[in-house]
């Protein structure tokens, strides 16, 4: 799975909220989800297909976080987004 590329599903809409969170709306189901600032930053990067490893290294470059923790965090978020159908393997 390390070479798998993840991308946003096209019919999702991200809306910035005033408290730093981002709302993600699944247009088809009309369910919405909220991402914190880090999650929103990762969502931005998923505009183009990304591997989990590339996202983890990018996260280390942006935030003060160890690579192992970044990998855990990215894996957890991608797994959650995939289960909810918000990202797809490209």
């Amino acid at each position, binding site marked *: 799975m390390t070479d798998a590329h993840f991308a946003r599903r096209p*019919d999702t809409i*991200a*809306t*910035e*909220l005033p408290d730093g*969170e981002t*709302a993600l709306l699944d*247009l088809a189901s009309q369910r919405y989800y909220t991402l914190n600032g880090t999650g929103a930053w990762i969502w931005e990067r998923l505009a183009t297909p990304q591997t989990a490893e590339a996202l983890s290294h990018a996260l280390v470059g942006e935030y003060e976080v160890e690579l192992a923790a970044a990998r855990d965090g990215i894996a957890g978020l991608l797994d959650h987004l995939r289960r909810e159908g918000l990202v797809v393997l490209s």
Partner: protein
Amino acid sequence: MDSETPRSGAATRGFVCPPGRPALPLRVALDLGVAHVRVIADAWLAADVRRTAVAMGFASAPVASAPAQAGGLSVRLCRTDAHLPDVPPDAVLRLQAHDLARGYSTPGGTVLWTPGGRSLVAAASADVEVVAGASPAEVAWHLTVSLQLLLRPLGAYGLHAAALERGPAGVLLVGPSDVGKSTLAYALVRQGWGFVSDDSVLLHAEGRDGAVEAVAFRRRFGLDADDRFPEVAAHAVPQPAEAGKWSVDVAALYAGQARMQTAPRLLVFPEIADAAESRLGRLAPADAYGRLLAQVGTRRLDDAHTRAHHALLGRLLAQAPAVRLAAGRDVLDAPARVADLLSDALPALP
């Protein structure tokens, strides 16, 4: 674009006014604040369209004397005795079902479906076709929803809300039907608040000073036909879309308080409470977003304007904090208290 030639294309076939009709007798331009829309209708529907325009409070002028229309927007309505076909499944990109109405995104535009009517809303024009016997409420629904869809390319998006003004600050009362929005709004107008719109507003990105504005869409108030506000009876006509409701010309009652638009600085989500006194509670932005979204009739639409629409909702939430109002009996018994409660929740403006 008032040619009576039907449009072509699989997605539009069957959703056009029949060709060869004699002159369409109703030709007016509705002033919707952000644009004028030319409306033409055949003899069968002219009266229903006029009634809707009056009940909504759309200012209208004959087409010949109307100002230049932005984008040449037009709606054409006609009645047919023919069976209205369903939308071919292979033309449907997305379906939005709501009670008896449905909306389909298709390659040819948005198709609005009700049991007795179809609208095809293409880029700058809409054709509405209803069968004989369709109710005035159905005609009113097709006309008002078509108008809202036509205004999306101009950056104006419909929201189920009443818009008021307290001093320089706009206040939106947002929520579904039957939570007392109109009653609360009218009670506040009686307390001296300015009013913009009842029940529906157009959110517009290009307000003064870069603010999101709420532009009047329904300038007359929809109030229950009862004796709670006895003064309104002399200024009311029956609602075409809702039995037992009046459409009240509030501008005639409170001329100095009418506004065309306002920049919202507070979002209020009212709920009826079985309590003597109303109470306010702050809403987190994510909660307010969900509640706001639920009152966007076109929330499932996925077209070229969808992302701009949602960005606008985000800007509105940044501009106006949100509160939940558990509206008690003081809305009618002590409206000054409710007015003070809401005034105190308004953020200080620079």
